[in-house]
């Protein structure tokens, strides 16, 4: 049931406020501790959190196991990268282009894929993503299989103010703002009419259709929304790394995003954030201790699947439900 919409207790409110404070003050805390270089990791977590949340929307809440979601993230990154390479630096132009291109791509891919179901849907979304991957590989003018390096970044100008995402602080806060907005929108979506309709559709879409929900239409709407949000994450990621390669669209990237969602908690508002944070921190820690970070990451993931079925947020939710009784 939609128990996340309950009123939080006092302890939980305090914890949330503390968390918000830390997150907002993070760059300064890191500098004070001499850990400046960790700011890029923090920004990477935020950007991946946005991407994972967008996947959670289509996968967790929409019930659509899309194995090609990384393609939208990569598409957003490439659109931004290509525009910057061509001399267009305006952040609003980037945003507009990314939204238009990913919306169109998601609409086309979703319209076709959603006519199939089950494993066939998984395969078709995978196929489309691979097509885009091979396309990215073959555009020699923009790096081809070696990837595209980007020197400049997105610039946003409001009145006299200029926000250059080359500034790591600016990037961090802009990404944080996007994440916060996404989580807020998601939290409003879950108990709304569409959120409830999607719950019915993912529980039993034959029944949902039989009671009068236009299931194809609603699934397509969610698919496109998720694709656009993914594209925005991609635009932020190219700003963060100054680089985009076709690997960003490879199916293993989609797999990584999926791992984050399942790890954090499918169909929970914070699932994408939790999953991204845990996986990236895990990789970072293991990577610094041993050369074989992937090996140990794999074991941790395996443990989560076998013993923590609802993901990390799911564990937290059920603990809270238990202590409330």
């Amino acid at each position, binding site marked *: *049931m939609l128990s996340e*919409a309950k009123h939080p207790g006092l302890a939980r409110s305090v914890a949330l406020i503390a968390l918000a404070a830390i997150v907002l003050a993070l760059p300064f805390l890191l500098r004070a501790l001499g850990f400046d270089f960790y700011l890029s990791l923090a920004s990477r977590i935020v950007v991946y959190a946005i991407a994972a949340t967008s996947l959670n929307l289509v996968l967790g809440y929409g019930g659509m196991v899309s194995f090609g979601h990384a393609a939208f993230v990569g598409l957003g990154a490439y659109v931004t990268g290509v525009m910057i390479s061509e001399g267009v630096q305006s952040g609003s132009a980037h945003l507009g282009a990314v939204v238009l291109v990913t919306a169109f791509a998601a609409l086309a891919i979703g319209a076709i894929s959603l006519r199939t179901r089950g494993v066939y849907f998984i395969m078709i979304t995978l196929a489309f993503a691979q097509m885009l991957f091979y396309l990215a590989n073959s555009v020699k003018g923009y790096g081809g299989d070696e990837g595209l390096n980007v020197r400049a970044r997105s610039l946003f100008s409001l009145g006299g103010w200029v926000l250059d995402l080359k500034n790591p602080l600016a990037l961090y806060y802009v990404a944080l703002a996007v994440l916060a907005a996404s989580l807020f*929108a998601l939290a*409003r*979506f879950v*108990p*709304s*009419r*569409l*959120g*409830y*309709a999607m*719950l*019915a559709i993912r*529980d*039993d879409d*034959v*029944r*949902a*259709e*039989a*009671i*009068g*929900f*236009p*299931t194809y239409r*609603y699934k397509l*709407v969610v698919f496109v929304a998720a694709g656009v949000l993914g594209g925005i994450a991609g635009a932020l990621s190219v700003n963060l790394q100054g680089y985009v390669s076709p690997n960003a669209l490879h199916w293993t990237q989609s797999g990584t995003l999926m791992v984050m969602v399942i790890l954090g908690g499918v169909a929970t508002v914070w699932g994408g954030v939790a999953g991204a944070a845990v996986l990236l921190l895990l990789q970072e820690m293991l990577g610094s201790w041993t050369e074989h970070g992937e090996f140990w990451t794999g074991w941790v993931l395996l443990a989560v699947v076998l013993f923590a079925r609802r993901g990390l947020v799911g564990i937290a939710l059920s603990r809270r439900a238990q202590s409330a009784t």
Partner: protein
Amino acid sequence: MTELPLLAARGLVKRFGGLVATDHVDLFVGRGEIHALIGPNGAGKTTLVAQLGGQLPCDEGRIVFAGDDITRLPTHLRARRGLVRSFQITRLFASASVLENVALAVQAARGSSLGAWRPVRRERALFDAARTLLDDVGLAAQAQLAIGALSHGQRRALEVAMTLAGEPALVMLDEPMAGMGHEESARMEQLIAGLRRRCTVLLIEHDVDAVFRLADRVSVLVEGRVVATGSPAAVRADPGVIAAYLGDAAEAPEAADAASA
């Protein structure tokens, strides 16, 4: 019938590979009646209902509902027009409570659900309507329970409540009494009888006695074909029906075997 039927299916054909599951079926359901569809196992009753409901496209034939040709109309639009069905194997929304299940059905029948901002809980009218429906089927006390906590009979009753959500003109109940004990069957029978003033009912059932008590008219489906249609008394006396289904011990298993391919 003196007036136009509410539902008129003509020449319906459905093939699965070499098997003809629905063989040129004509079915007419009059407004306000309880029309029962009976037949041995494997006769193709659920296949027929699936074509009427839109879950299965028919290969040939036409379906006319309230004067409009709905043969190619998608399921959700049929539901919106007042033609709804329940399922032989109970299909409910496991993540939602009993009340929420019915509320979802009401929501689906009222307006668009493309809003992603306002919480549904604020729509009092929706939940009031849902509560009334639960009351009608005798599940008012179970409103806050999870689906898993309901008995089989209660789940079937919930399904009926959900089909009534949009104030439909025609409700197709696919074996609502399947798997029920004596007491639960009696209650379901009462429930169905009570639907008489509310809507037209197409009832697919196995329990022949209950059918003969409830139905105004009966159609008998054998091997995908309608072999008889008429009042319960007339159908009961029809020698073809008796041979194929009701009494003849030698014939009935053969017919059932041949039908259940």
